[in-house]
């Protein structure tokens, strides 16, 4: 082949004649999106992404199927080309059904990989589970206990027997780790020489410290209270979060080199200006510690306690003694926490709330538990005044309410019933109607009308250079702990950049989500009851502040974890479509357009088929035909309803020509085809790759192992090589042999047959096996 010269985007490139343009462009290091092209296979010309303009023609050409000619001038990027690419990608997305990440992970404000750690727990990989959890949450034992778990609201198992107890499983993994002599600690990079001051050792501050410390920065947290923990210690009662647990987890953060100085209040013991001078960056996470007043006549009478105030004092040991009859005004979690604490202190407690039970912001299970403990509930009663006796608050004047039309929050607006006023005396009145930022010590910082710190939603910056803020103290005001933790983590990312001189913002990357998922999609899932949480019985648990929820046993945890439907895509880290969708901002899925919903093919023990994710690039068909020669797959039907599938869309396991070599999985650019484990869960994980040599015969094929920690996830052939099915599936099978009892006899025999399906490269003797255990012993012997 003679050498020729072509121009690519104006640059001269020398190449061999006869090559296709895409090969040349990629070899020159120029970016060119492509999905259906693979150099070992004949060019297909399907996806239409590798379009180029060629001087002298008005058409656009597919670079993969256009031969280079001497003197050709090629343009790889233009408005026209990019517009077509964007449309094509949007069209692909419009018929691409799936979820890049599971709805639980998507719903978690902190982006915790619930599907990931639940899968690891199911597989008995507890060390890997905690290390995965700690990639996003530094205080999992605490969060697992107290989070209102938005992840569970999104869990699709709720369409069947009930959501997974994701939170409790997190607690299980975290507690297991805390019980070790050496609990898990993330790696800390070499010291950067930079220092960051954090104000507030609550969940947000602790989280920021945890992540910044890992980057090698020196961290000092200034905490106003005598002990660290913020609301975790001073706003949440012990029976929900035992202090030993909190202390242990904070200690692990300190082990990363974080210094926590308590009894240092901003504006009193330290000044913001001083911090700005001494440190490279400051993160303010002071929380919202002021109780909102009742907002009625008499609300300034002595003797009325704020809800937050009361809990704080209780923790500090200086709470006033409560009388026999206590009123707690409010409907949120704080009100319930206050009420249940008061019950444990021996009082007869009445909760007064102006709307009905259904509108209470408190978590329903907390209200139920409180009722079990003897809480009196008084709904549709608005406090219209506090009456006094001897200069002290002595009781409440309550206006009876009824539900009217909905207000802006969407909830029915309560209306007073004229003439119906009641009065009741109480020994103590505690107002738990809201939290506010106290605003002390925040001089110089711009505040919102609500008195919260104004922090940019994308980069947590404030009006002061180098000062960042997050958590309850900012913008919308108080949220839940996991939101504060998420802020800490994301702010740490931005601050780390700021310190290095980089502009960073935090934005949640685009993910594909299935908006129309319904119970019908779960038709073939066998029923499995949820493992309920166990509680101490109400009569005994109100006697003290000991933890009321009992932890899962290992057996319970695994049983519950096994219910996970694995909604998130297997190909999250290897998908070649998702990066293109993001790059070209091809986000609209055509609303109202028809989308195929054909469901999963889980018939094959080693290969999972999710045909609704298929983009019809044809790589599986072509590799099965051109490279492997088994011809087990082809396109079926025509046009919009085409599928790349076994004959007549039958199940893959019934395909007589399939030899289970797994090459189709290797080449599939999306999650339409993936490796799966019949012995456990297959959580998508960011794996590290290590070169390995297959140990099973003298061929010593070069393979690539994908590991998460020490756990071998899967083995792939290296480069364009082909592996035999033993090489591909033998090692992972061995490393999961402990779970073999999960299979029934038929599944076992199918697995046995499939693992020996493609022995083309195997250089050895294969005896007859009676069962999978024989095969595994045989493999182990081969290795020895």
């Amino acid at each position: 082949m003679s050498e020729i010269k072509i121009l690519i985007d104006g640059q001269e490139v020398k190449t061999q004649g006869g090559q296709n343009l895409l090969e040349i462009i990629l070899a020159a290091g120029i970016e060119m999106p492509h999905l259906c092209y693979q150099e070992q296979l004949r060019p297909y010309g399907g996806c239409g992404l590798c379009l180029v303009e060629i001087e002298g023609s008005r058409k656009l050409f597919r670079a993969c199927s256009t031969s280079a000619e001497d003197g050709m001038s090629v343009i790889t990027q233009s408005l026209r080309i990019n517009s077509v690419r964007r449309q094509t990608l949007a069209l692909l997305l419009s018929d691409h059904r799936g979820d890049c990440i599971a709805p639980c992970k998507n719903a978690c404000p902190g982006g915790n990989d619930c599907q990931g750690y639940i899968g690891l727990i199911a597989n008995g990989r507890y060390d890997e589970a905690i290390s995965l959890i700690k990639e996003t949450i530094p205080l999992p034992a605490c969060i697992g206990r107290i989070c209102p778990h938005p992840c569970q609201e999104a869990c699709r198992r709720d369409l069947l027997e009930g959501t997974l107890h994701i939170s409790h499983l997190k607690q299980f993994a975290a507690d297991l780790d805390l019980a070790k002599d050496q609990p898990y600690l993330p790696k800390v990079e070499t010291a950067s020489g930079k220092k960051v001051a954090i104000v507030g050792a609550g969940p947000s501050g602790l989280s920021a410290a945890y992540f910044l410390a890992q980057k090698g920065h020196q961290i000092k947290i200034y905490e106003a209270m005598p002990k660290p923990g913020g609301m975790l210690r001073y706003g949440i009662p012990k029976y929900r979060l035992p202090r030993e647990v909190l202390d242990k987890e904070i200690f692990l953060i300190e082990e990363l080199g974080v210094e926590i100085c308590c009894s240092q209040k901003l504006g009193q013991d330290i000044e913001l200006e001083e911090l700005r001078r001494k440190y490279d960056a400051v993160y303010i996470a002071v929380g919202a510690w002021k109780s909102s007043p009742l907002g009625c006549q008499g609300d300034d009478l002595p003797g009325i306690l704020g809800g937050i105030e009361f809990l704080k004092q209780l923790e500090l040991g200086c709470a006033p003694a409560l009388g026999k009859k206590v009123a707690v005004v409010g409907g949120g979690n704080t009100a319930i926490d206050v009420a249940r604490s008061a019950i444990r202190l021996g009082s007869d407690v009445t909760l007064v709330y102006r709307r009905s039970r259904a509108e209470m912001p408190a978590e329903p299970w907390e209200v139920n538990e409180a009722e079990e403990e003897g809480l009196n509930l008084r709904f549709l009663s608005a406090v219209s005044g506090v009456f006094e006796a001897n200069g002290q608050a002595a009781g409440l004047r309550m206006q009876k309410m009824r539900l009217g039309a909905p207000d802006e929050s969407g909830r029915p607006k309560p209306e007073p019933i004229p003439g119906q006023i009641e009065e009741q005396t109480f020994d103590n009145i505690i107002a738990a109607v809201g939290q506010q930022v106290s605003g002390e010590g925040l001089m110089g910082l711009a505040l919102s009308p609500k008195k919260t710190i104004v922090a940019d939603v994308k980069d947590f910056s404030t009006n002061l250079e180098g000062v960042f803020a997050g958590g309850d103290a900012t913008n919308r005001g108080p949220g839940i702990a996991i939101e504060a933790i998420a802020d800490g983590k994301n702010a740490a990312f931005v601050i780390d950049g700021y310190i290095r001189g980089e502009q960073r913002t935090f934005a949640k990357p685009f993910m594909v989500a299935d908006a129309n998922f319904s119970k019908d999609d779960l038709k073939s899932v066998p029923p499995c009851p949820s493992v309920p949480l166990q509680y101490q019985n109400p009569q005994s648990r109100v006697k003290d502040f000991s933890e009321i929820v009992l932890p899962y046993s290992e057996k319970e945890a695994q049983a519950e974890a096994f219910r996970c439907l694995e909604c998130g895509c297997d190909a999250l880290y290897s998908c070649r479509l998702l990066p293109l969708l993001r790059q070209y901002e091809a986000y609209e899925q055509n609303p109202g357009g028809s989308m195929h919903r054909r469901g999963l093919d889980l018939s094959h023990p080693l290969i999972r088929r999710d045909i609704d994710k298929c983009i019809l690039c044809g790589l599986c068909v072509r590799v099965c035909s051109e490279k492997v020669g088994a011809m087990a797959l082809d396109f079926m039907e025509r046009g919009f309803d085409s599928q790349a599938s076994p004959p007549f869309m039958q199940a893959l396991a019934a395909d007589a020509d399939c030899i289970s070599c797994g090459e189709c999985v290797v080449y599939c650019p999306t999650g339409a085809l993936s490796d799966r484990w019949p012995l456990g869960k297959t959580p998508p994980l960011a794996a590290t790759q290590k070169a390995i040599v297959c140990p099973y015969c003298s061929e010593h094929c070069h393979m690539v192992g994908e590991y998460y920690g020490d756990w071998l996830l899967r083995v792939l052939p290296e480069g364009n090589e082909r592996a035999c099915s033993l090489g591909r599936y033998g090692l992972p099978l061995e490393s999961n042999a402990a779970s073999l009892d999960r299979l029934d006899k038929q599944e076992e025999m199918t697995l046995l047959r499939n693992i020996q399906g493609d022995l083309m490269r195997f250089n050895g003797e294969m005896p007859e096996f009676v069962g999978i255990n024989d095969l595994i012993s045989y493999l182990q012997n081969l290795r020895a």
Partner: protein
Amino acid sequence: MTKANNQSVDLSPVGAILAKHQDPKGELIALLQDLQELYGYLPQEVLLYIADKADIPMARLAGVATFYAQFHLECPGKYQILICNGTACHVNRSQELAEIIEDKTGVAEEQTSLDGLFFWRRVACLGCCSLAPVMMVNSQVYGKLDKSKTAAIIDELRNQERTVR
């Protein structure tokens, strides 16, 4: 000869058809056409048999059989009604024919009626545009149709069946 789906298929004539084609894989479409001519459709058993005897991968067979509109994988009715969906016929309200046929046969498009008599679908232009709208029943072409003429044709076919029995 058409066979109802629940009867087993007689494979003895397949050998002769296979022998006609020197290169079964390369002449796959012609081979399938001959088989469909014989059986009225392409029974699964016949396809499995061909895959085996002529050494053609089943996936390839299935891919070809499902691509082309001509091939039926299920036994169609005794009377195959093809309503022309060409432009001239469309413009002359061929859609109304489809509505009447659906009504009179009692089945949706691409389905066989329960009595096994009728199967209907719309097809690409039959090339008889001057007679629009047009439909073909087995190989008989009917042109210049309207709702009542179409209904009458179906009634007539039904009557024929009754008298035969």
